[in-house]
């Protein structure tokens, strides 16, 4: 069938481009998740700090970046970010345009959004740590830093894994919106292929299937991580998936 040839790897096949685009989606999502992890940790710490200014900052961050449509945030970063950098450049004496590349702008935008979700995941995980275990750490004379490094961090990471799996899924799909910056990720490549060949259904279905493959791979990875992290938990808490 001619349409299947279009998906192949021959001279008229889009297979290679679609695979590249899938890898691009993976790369941009992973970068965004990493950016989000840093932002999320900072915002979660702010929200838990008890300092009213920090708490307010944390609340504003999570409210705004979860409440505004992702597309708008991507636009604001893509265009707004470039203007900001360019004007900084001007101030420093550099005439001309300093743009955020599509990849950086996209990863940053999705990362900022992902950070607002990760902040809530981390905060929930922190609150789920047993108060008794924290007291036990104080009681043997652990100071703050040690307590954080030895008791809090490992447990937050373990408790956060399922939540992070969900955030990954969200970010994966948010990355589809980066197509407006022209970055050749999976969504845009599907659209371009569809527009160039006028085989809309073929390429949208192919794109959808590639997203599903990414989902099932990442599900598998997160499940394995969760099982590994939960080896300290009673047998009954595992294997209920």
């Amino acid at each position: 069938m001619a349409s299947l040839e279009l998906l192949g790897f021959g001279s008229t096949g889009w297979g290679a481009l679609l695979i590249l685009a899938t890898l691009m989606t993976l790369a941009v999502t992973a970068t965004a998740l990493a950016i989000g992890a840093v932002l999320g940790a900072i915002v979660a710490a702010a929200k838990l700090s008890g300092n009213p200014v920090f708490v307010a900052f944390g609340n504003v961050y999570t409210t705004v970046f979860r409440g505004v449509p992702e597309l708008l945030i991507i636009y604001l970063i893509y265009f707004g970010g470039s203007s900001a950098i360019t004007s900084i450049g001007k101030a420093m004496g550099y005439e001309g345009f300093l743009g955020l590349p599509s990849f950086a702008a996209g990863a940053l935008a999705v990362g900022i959004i992902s950070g607002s979700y990760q902040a809530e995941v981390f905060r929930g995980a922190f609150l789920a740590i047993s108060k008794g275990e924290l007291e036990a750490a104080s009681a043997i004379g652990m100071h703050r830093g040690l307590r954080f490094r030895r008791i809090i961090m490992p447990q937050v990471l373990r408790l956060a894994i399922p939540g992070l799996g969900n955030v990954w899924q969200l970010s994966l799909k948010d990355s589809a919106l980066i197509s407006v910056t022209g970055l050749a990720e999976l969504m845009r490549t599907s659209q371009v292929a569809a527009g160039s060949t006028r085989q809309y259904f073929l390429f949208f279905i192919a794109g959808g299937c590639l997203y599903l493959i990414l989902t099932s791979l990442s599900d598998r990875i997160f499940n394995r991580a969760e099982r590994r992290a939960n080896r300290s938990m009673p047998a009954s808490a595992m294997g209920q998936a």
Partner: protein
Amino acid sequence: MDFTFLASTMVTLLKAVPTTLILFSLSIFFGGVLALVIVSMRVSGNPVLSGFAKGYIFVFRGSPLLIQMFLVFYGLGQFGVIRYSFLWPFLREPMVCAVLSLALCTAGYTAEIFRGGIRAVSPKEIEAARSIGMSGFLLVRRILAPIAFRHALPAYSTEIVLMMKSTALASLVTVWEVTGVAQRLISQTYRTMEVFLCAAIIYLVLNFIILQGMALLEYSLSRHRRAAPQPLKA
């Protein structure tokens, strides 16, 4: 800043808010109903039903809504079976298709959220209900559903907000809600930042109201978890 432009943009966008709200409330409603069906299949214990539910959830959680919506709206009409069936008068309508694809998508997520809530119900409380002779629908209605819903509420609030944002895609299928109108305004005026700023404020306000409402609901449903009221000392 050009305030007259901002004001007129705001007015134009506000006119699209009812469309956004209709999309939102209908898809939340039908998505919720569908999620109940999916989740009951998922936990039914019947391998065929639960396999179907798993597949459903996988597909609708795992692929971008944009693709789903495109396939529902433009794809279904490609099939003569559908085009000449009694369904077509409904599926012809963009609003119906938009709500359909939003509801199909949220049902996958919501089913997972509800399942989490069900799993959080203590098996002991269910056993206690069985031991006084409850079973079937009575058990679900009186014990399982209320407890599960309470557990699922925080995650469900998040899903509802995500849904509000997802309505932004409906302009793809010619339902011109707030984001679509904003994009159209931009391609007429090319003033990206101002228009998106107005749109962002609208969504922020809508979502803020929704979250406050959900928090209120959560509060009123968690009396049994709050500290006991302190008896007044006379």
